[in-house]
């Protein structure tokens, strides 16, 4: 494989050459630092390279959107992050942002405009669906996931927060696998337990962890694969599967990883 296929241009490099990308891929902190979610970032980059999208990342210039700070109540910190990020984004004259994190997606799309950051923001589930619809990704039937049972776990920040329920499902349907729904799905989907900055603290005392409740529901579908589209959901569901000692039989994979794997990227 040529080095070219794993090309990761940064905005700084592009700007130096006087070029501007079609999309900015906002990687997010989990996509940058979390060992598991870095694989999702890499899978998405491989797809972008495969379909020859003119994209760039901010690289070291990217910082936290401020989502967990705002949801934990620290509005000052959120706005410091947001205003600083908007300065960088506006400095590069960014118009269109794609991200693989529903929390970054929600914050940049819904909360940055009031602070001076107006962009077209797309979650990678929607972006992948668009690539499939446009025929840029053609999944050959009978691939790796043919006949596998996949259940999709709705991310709250994609679903209820932004009414994106069908895009990730459309992507999964393209895999020629059997898509099964959990008892609580779409508008009634049960949270993984990590939203609202819960990712960054222990749960309050109760009689069960939320991710265990959700994992039990996912396992009850008999799925071989739990598909997610959010770094926090990924962590919570993976931990849940481990807790149930099912990691040999059930994989938690992001929709971008599923596409990349079935494309042999």
């Amino acid at each position: 494989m040529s080095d070219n296929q794993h090309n990761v241009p940064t905005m700084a490099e592009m700007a130096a050459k006087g070029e501007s990308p079609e999309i900015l891929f906002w990687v997010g902190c989990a996509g940058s630092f979390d060992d598991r979610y870095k694989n999702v970032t890499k899978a998405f980059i491989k797809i972008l390279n495969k379909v020859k999208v003119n994209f760039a990342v901010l690289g070291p210039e990217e910082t936290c959107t401020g989502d967990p700070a705002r949801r934990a109540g620290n509005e000052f910190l959120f706005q410091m992050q947001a205003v600083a990020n908007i300065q960088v984004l506006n400095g590069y004259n960014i118009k269109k942002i794609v991200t693989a994190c529903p929390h970054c997606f929600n914050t940049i799309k819904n909360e940055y405009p009031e602070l001076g950051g107006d962009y077209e923001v797309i979650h990678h589930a929607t972006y992948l669906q668009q690539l499939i619809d446009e025929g840029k990704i053609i999944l050959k039937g009978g691939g790796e996931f043919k006949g596998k049972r996949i259940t999709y776990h709705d991310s709250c920040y994609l679903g209820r927060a932004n009414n994106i329920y069908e895009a990730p499902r459309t992507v999964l349907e393209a895999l020629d696998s059997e898509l099964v729904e959990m008892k609580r799905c779409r508008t009634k989907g049960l949270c993984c337990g990590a939203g609202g900055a819960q990712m960054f603290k222990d749960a309050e005392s109760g009689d069960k962890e939320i991710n265990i409740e959700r994992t039990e529901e996912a396992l009850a579908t008999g799925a071989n694969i739990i598909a997610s589209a959010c770094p926090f959901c990924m962590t919570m569901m993976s931990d849940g599967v481990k807790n149930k000692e099912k990691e040999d039989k059930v994989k938690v994979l992001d929709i971008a990883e599923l596409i990349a794997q079935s494309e042999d990227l």
Partner: protein
Amino acid sequence: MEYIQQIAFVIVTAFAAYFLSRRIKQITKNIQLGKGTDRGDKSPERWKNMFLVAFGQKKMFKKMIPAFLHLLIYVGFLIINLEVLEFILDGLLGTHRLFAPFLGEFYTVCINFFELLAVGVLLSCIVFLIRRNILRVKRFSGLEMTSWPTLDANLILIVEIVLMLAILTMNATDQLLQSQNAHYTATGSFFFSGLLMPLFENLSGPALVLIERFAWWFHIIGIFAFAVYVTYSKHLHIFLAFPNTYYANLNEKGKIDNMPEVTNEVKMMLGLPQENGGEQQPPAEIGRFGAKDINDLTWVNIMNAYACTECGRCTAQCPANLTGKKLSPRKIMMDTRDRAEEVGKSITEGGKGLEDGKALLGDYITKEEINACTSCNACVEACPVNIDPLAIILQMRRYIAMEESGSPASWNAMFSNIETSFSPWKFAPTDRFNWADELKSEGK
């Protein structure tokens, strides 16, 4: 003597109007304890929401059985109340079935239809009592469902049953009296109350008049009393569902309201131009950051609390509550209402009001509840009248974080990670782009 009933009716109506208007004023004041918020935009969309969600009960139909039974009671309430107009006119004018001669056979059709609805209401209320007290549907219980909310729910159902029985009794005795007493206008026969006629047919004329008058008075006084009672009860949703859906949040549910007073300070700290000319403007009075008490919330939050009928659909969907945490979105709304009532009542009575040494956060709602929320919006999605418990929770988190620095230690650590490493985790910012090197080496 013949005017006694009319005079009594005027007095009863005046009392009801007095108590009702006093309560409406008090509740309006209580809601106005909240801060201003602009929800006057996009009126076509707001009317549409009100029409679909409140009038059309769209969100109720996520659960078909209660939705259908509730619809029967709702339609019954809307339509049977047309008859109350006749009741009031009869009461004031000393007439009996004033509309009957004007409407002729159509009157018979109407009353038969009302009776059908009354039977629908009656049966639905019985099923609802069974669901609450015998089947014990889980969402009707919970820590916040103490003796008063439980009694309130049962009382409403029982009162509705009794009121419907009064209508049917009145119509049954009325029909018997029509052949004996010229005062009783001939109406044609009514099917459902006709089934009750055998119970009364052996009674004497005066006894029938007594029962008919008793049922009439019971029904109208019952309605007046119920109207006043409703303002103290969770049942207020029958009115407030309408403004509540009209003024509901229209933004994407994931969006949290901005705090412009913070934006100015942040821009100043970063040396950016501020809106409204920045320093030239005298700084507007900045109240508390976030919400500690009822007056820190918006009036929409407080109206939400008065519109809550404690059905528990929110709590039944709450991931924190489902896994045994103390948080219950319904309790957040009930506490908000209780505190608004307490403060409002105290102010009206010349008491200490907000300065009574208590606060919504701390004395009603605990940090443990607030901290358990995942902001997943399941409660907001579940509410049949578009109440937003999450908005209150998030404002309280702002108070805890910004006024008290009282967030959980792990959150404070997360805050300092963002401040120093620009990521909620403690990673070196210089490692942020390592994944790209890993990917490139993978490709070789």
